[in-house]
């Protein structure tokens, strides 16, 4: 057995390091390291409660709206404020735009370029992959960046700017949209829909969402052009559907909380059972292999004390567990929990999430969000308010903001005493997916997904390692915050 250290790992948000034990061309153990710690949970304590709205989004430049919305929901729970319905709709639209921008940036700029590596020269799809996904000069970068910038015009209309806006408040949002603004929102959404259908999926969003079975999917990939059909052909040839199996349990905290039910429902999905309700009280963060001290604790009573010298530590990330078990989060989890039939059918093939299903679920989600955004824009009440007032007296109490970011479940657990933050604990999506081992020695989801990976003579340089890691769309700056 040889132990290899792999890093830096670019084309992820932040930096990442792996330690891979390899024996006879197969990974036997993997350890994932978050090598950056900035101390947001320490910085938030002691500040006026609403300062969380300025500081928490700055945890992450790629999912800052998610962080804003989680902070605003936690403070909303503490304040007991009923948000203005228009504010919820505007926040959902902005959130969907951020998540779509993340999904497409991940696909075209972070994930697909690995298929242009010379290791694949000679495959029947190689020339097409090089033309589409070569960094800097490929067609995908050239097409996506202007379309992404245009889509983010929604942020200019709703939030002033992106990333890092103060527009998302416990009572709603800070800018009422007049008739012209609402028309411009619609125009951006329709323009984006055409782009996504033409460049990415090659068919209408409706036709894409009609696919129900793996056979449908296979036939669709063969019959159409577009970045996604190209990936599906590559995936079939390279065995991505068996690559990087997840831990078996998939979780979603509920995506896009509406005035009534969330758009994507909350729950836990396992291959051997249907959706179960999440017991949020059974979440605990374990620090046994983190450069952190402290006993395993629910985030409502947890704290964050770094110890970079701790001998047993190998990551600044804590290890979150649900009832003692690691769970995978992200688009594939959301769509499985929500019961999307194609994603459920693809998962049923080998009873585990995989590189293919993670990528596919993001594209399904983008297609579903196009319809959702149209509905939210239509639902705006032209006469209604956007932001409800906060109580005049200083906030006091505890609350949690449990939402879904692009990469999966995001929770902010906040305690406020006499108007000031007394405790602020965050579990981000990649904290779940890229957690280190827990006290029982159970590895996190990525650590499990890499075990038994065949790397052959390439060892740690095998491109399959890159596919598995990036299929989770890791956000390392969120992971250890």
């Amino acid at each position, binding site marked *: 057995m040889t132990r290899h250290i792999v890093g830096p790992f670019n084309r992820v948000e932040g930096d990442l390091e792996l330690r891979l034990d390899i024996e006879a061309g197969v990974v036997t153990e993997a350890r994932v390291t978050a090598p950056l710690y900035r101390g947001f949970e320490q910085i938030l304590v002691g500040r006026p409660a609403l300062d969380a709205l300025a500081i928490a989004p700055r*945890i992450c430049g790629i999912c800052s709206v998610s962080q804003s919305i989680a902070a605003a929901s936690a403070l909303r729970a503490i304040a007991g404020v009923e948000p203005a319905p228009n504010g919820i709709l505007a926040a959902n639209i902005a959130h969907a735009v951020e998540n779509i921008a993340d999904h497409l940036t991940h696909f075209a700029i972070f994930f697909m370029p690995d298929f242009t590596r010379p290791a694949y020269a000679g495959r029947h799809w190689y020339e097409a992959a090089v033309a589409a996904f070569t960094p800097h000069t490929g067609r995908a970068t050239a097409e996506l960046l202007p379309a992404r910038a245009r889509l983010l015009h929604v942020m200019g209309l709703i939030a002033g700017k992106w990333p890092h806006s103060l527009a998302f408040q416990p*009572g709603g949002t800070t800018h009422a949209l007049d008739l012209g603004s609402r028309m411009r929102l619609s125009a951006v959404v329709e323009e984006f829909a055409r782009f996504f259908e033409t460049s990415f999926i090659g068919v209408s969003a409706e036709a894409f969402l009609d696919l129900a079975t793996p056979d449908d999917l296979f036939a669709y990939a063969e019959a159409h052009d577009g970045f996604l059909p190209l990936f599906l052909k590559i995936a079939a040839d390279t065995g991505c559907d068996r690559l990087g199996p997840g831990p078996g349990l998939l979780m979603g905290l509920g995506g896009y909380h509406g005035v009534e039910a969330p758009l994507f429902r909350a729950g836990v999905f396992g291959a051997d059972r249907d959706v179960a309700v999440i017991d949020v009280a059974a979440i605990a963060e374990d620090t046994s292999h983190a450069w952190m001290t402290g006993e395993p604790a629910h985030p409502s009573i947890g704290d964050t004390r770094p110890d970079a010298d701790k001998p047993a530590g190998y990551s600044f990330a804590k290890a979150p567990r649900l009832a003692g078990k690691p769970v995978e989060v992200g688009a594939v989890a959301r769509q499985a929990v929500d019961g999307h039939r194609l994603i459920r059918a693809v998962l049923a093939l080998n009873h585990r999430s995989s590189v293919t299903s993670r990528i596919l679920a993001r594209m399904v989600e983008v297609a579903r969000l196009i319809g959702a955004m149209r509905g939210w824009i239509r639902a705006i009440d032209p006469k209604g308010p956007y932001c409800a007032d906060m109580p005049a007296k200083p906030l006091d109490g505890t609350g949690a903001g449990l939402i879904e970011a692009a990469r999966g479940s995001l929770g902010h657990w906040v305690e406020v005493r006499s108007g000031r933050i007394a405790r602020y604990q965050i579990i981000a999506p990649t904290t779940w997916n890229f957690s280190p081992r827990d006290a029982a020695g159970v590895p996190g989801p990525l650590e499990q997904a890499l075990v038994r990976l065949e790397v052959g003579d390439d060892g740690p340089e095998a491109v399959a390692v890159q596919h598995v890691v990036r299929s989770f769309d890791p956000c390392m700056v969120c992971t250890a915050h």
Partner: protein
Amino acid sequence: MIWLQAGSCGGCTMSALEVGTRGLVADFAASGIDLLFHPSLSLASGAEVVALFDSVAAGDTPLDILCVEGSILAGPNGSGRFNRFAGTDKPVMTLVRDLASVAGVTVGIGSCAAFGGIPAAAPDPTEARGLAFDGSRRGGALGLDYRSRRGLPVVNVAGCAPHPGWVVETLTALAAGLLNAEDLDGFGRPRFFADHLAHHGCSRNEFYEFKASAERSSDRGCMMEHLGCKATQAVGDCNQRRWNGSGSCTDGGSTCIACTAPGFEAMAGFQTTAKLAGIPVGLPVDMPKAWFVALAALSKSATPKRVRDNSRADRIVVPPGRPQGGR
């Protein structure tokens, strides 16, 4: 050019990617900038990247522009281990110093790399600082006397996150040799955006003139008196160029938190105006307090009903007076 991320949220990269109609990569190529490495955009990974950086530090591969995004984390206890460069034993702090010593020019992208930014907020758990400044104090991670190979101090594209135009225009001007020491202000910020105030061009200017103030989030009035807006004191041409198409913080009802200023993270109560005896502590730049008080009293007494009513609503409730249309 090499772009590094230190103690960063990645938001400056995400903002820069929004630039223009062609996209960031095409803009760089058109300006003759050869991007040797960017953490979000490059194919190279792992050992290839370490080898590239070794070659640059040794002087074998020339480096014209070094961009650093994020705070330099010196903690714990000066070791830099809160931010180790993955795959190596080297703190990013050391890597930045190595590359800055050979760079034609070093550019701090965003307020973290410029001054320390949000990670430097109390209790400063990671000993975060900027490249050439620690807050507003000269002497960051690169030391008091740092000058790049071209003899320039660190160029600071401040902002959290900075406007994509600030980033790209600074880099393309540097590539063309058009940005020199005299084009920077005392904090190293390019004067093409730092000689303006965020207030200039704010769409709430009529409310400001009459001190018709917003009292609640989403009110249309001026946010300076009650909601903590710092736009009259913060540098940036924020309201003269637009963000994400048509936006700006103050347009969107997001109070200006002076994110281009050193030490902005130290503010407590971002959305509340600090006052002494009823007068805002932070007054418009260059305005004597007595004048401000006198003018505010006068303009408040002269506020038209339309302006006063609209300032306390989230949409226009009283339109401007106009001649009656005839048939």
